[in-house]
């Protein structure tokens, strides 16, 4: 594996961690709000 491939795989891990770090709480919050919003149609 050359250094370019190492950098690419390292970046992929960092990207997954960084986006997961902000994405998981955001998706959780959106789902909570969506569940409340559905009450409008009940």
């Amino acid at each position, binding site marked *: 594996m050359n250094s370019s491939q190492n950098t690419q795989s390292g970046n992929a891990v960092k990207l997954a961690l*960084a986006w997961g*770090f902000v994405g998981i709480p*955001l998706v959780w919050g959106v789902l*909570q709000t*969506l569940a409340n919003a*559905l009450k*409008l149609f*009940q």
Partner: protein
Amino acid sequence: MTFLSILDRNHTIARPGFSRWLVPPAALCVHLCIGQAYAFSVFNLPMTKLLGITQSTPDDWNLPQLGWIFSIAIFVLGASAALLGRWVEEGGPRRAMFTAALCWGGGFILSAVGVHLHNIWLVYFGYGVLGGFGLGIGYISPVSTLIKWLPDRPGMATGMAIMGFGGGAFIASPLSVWLMQQFSTPTHVGVAETFVVMGVVYMCFMMVGAAIVRVPAPGWKPEGYVAPEQSKKLITTKDVYVYGALKTPQFWLIWWVLCLNVTAGIGVLGQASAMIQEVFQGRVSVVAAAGFVGLMSLFNMGGRFFWASTSDYIGRKNTYFVFFALGTLLYALVPYTGSIGSVTLFVAFYAVIFSMYGGGFATVPAYLRDMFGTRYVGAIHGLLLTAWSMAGIFGPALVNYIREYNVTHGVAKAQAYNVTMYVMAVLLVIGFICNLFVQAVHERHHMKQGAEAAMAD
């Protein structure tokens, strides 16, 4: 090398191989936290019972007193973004994010002490002033960095971050309620402990953003991207100095564009729950109205990403033309949906309106970049946020006073908002005209080679 020197712009220059897609999550780390401000109202009722626990006592704080906490924070947001924009721009995003984290987290902790001692002034200073500084610095901290990393998609870049500000409330609202439930006892409300936990969590979360963020090396550009050598009609390749922008008509036209777009949305946003219940009396319950507010918040957030990204393709000026033209039409038609009793149309119209309200916030940094270049765009954006502060005062006042006037003059509650909607439509027509007059900045305002250092002194 001292610890603080790692915060400098020079120490945040990305090494070769750094992925630019790590910068949006860094920005989101900050905006998701400071977006809590939109959910501060969940603390209002519990804070009126800090002494009485089950009900308010005469010594407890009342709602008008508590309302000032949010108002001070939003005022300081605008003022600090305007005053500290140049400091943020020249010091780099890491120093700004680090400072914002200390202010925002520290503001919560100081407020916890204020709640514990039952001293409202400490809460005003903690959340309002210190937290307000965190809001202002944090809001503008990633803007120019994102635009520099994504010169091919500046609208999408800032849309992602500012979407986080809209989304922060979705996390904060249920989290705050859950934390207060955990800390409350029969003799204690649990607000102070909730503030401490949130302050610490937010500070850590924002520090992660400060650690991740990088600025591109001088001359860096994305692979395959060819920067335009000459300015296009409405997209400049030159830079305008932060205070030089204030001397241009373009700054003040865009200031009014933002102010009018926000005024039209923000007033209705605060009254959304009461409005849908009064327009459709007996058909929309309190619970359903809360669902309506949640749905509007989702469209507000989604619109930030959607419209800002769309502006990369259709242009910033055209995007605002859509906001103002479509917004005018929809506001003018809202009373009709009430008169025919169509809840579905009413909700659909407001969904589009609120998507454009959020879109207005998210598209404006890229509009400023097109007009004034990238060098001081964050600082100029900070100055422009005074339009938000102004709209925050006028919007709700307009909606509340017109409704009150109508009700006291015998207009049925179901029709009490009709005049307000027409007034909003007129405001959007004025915004359309302001946008129409936006032209490229005259070259006499452009920074000259070597002038940057002199201006910064």
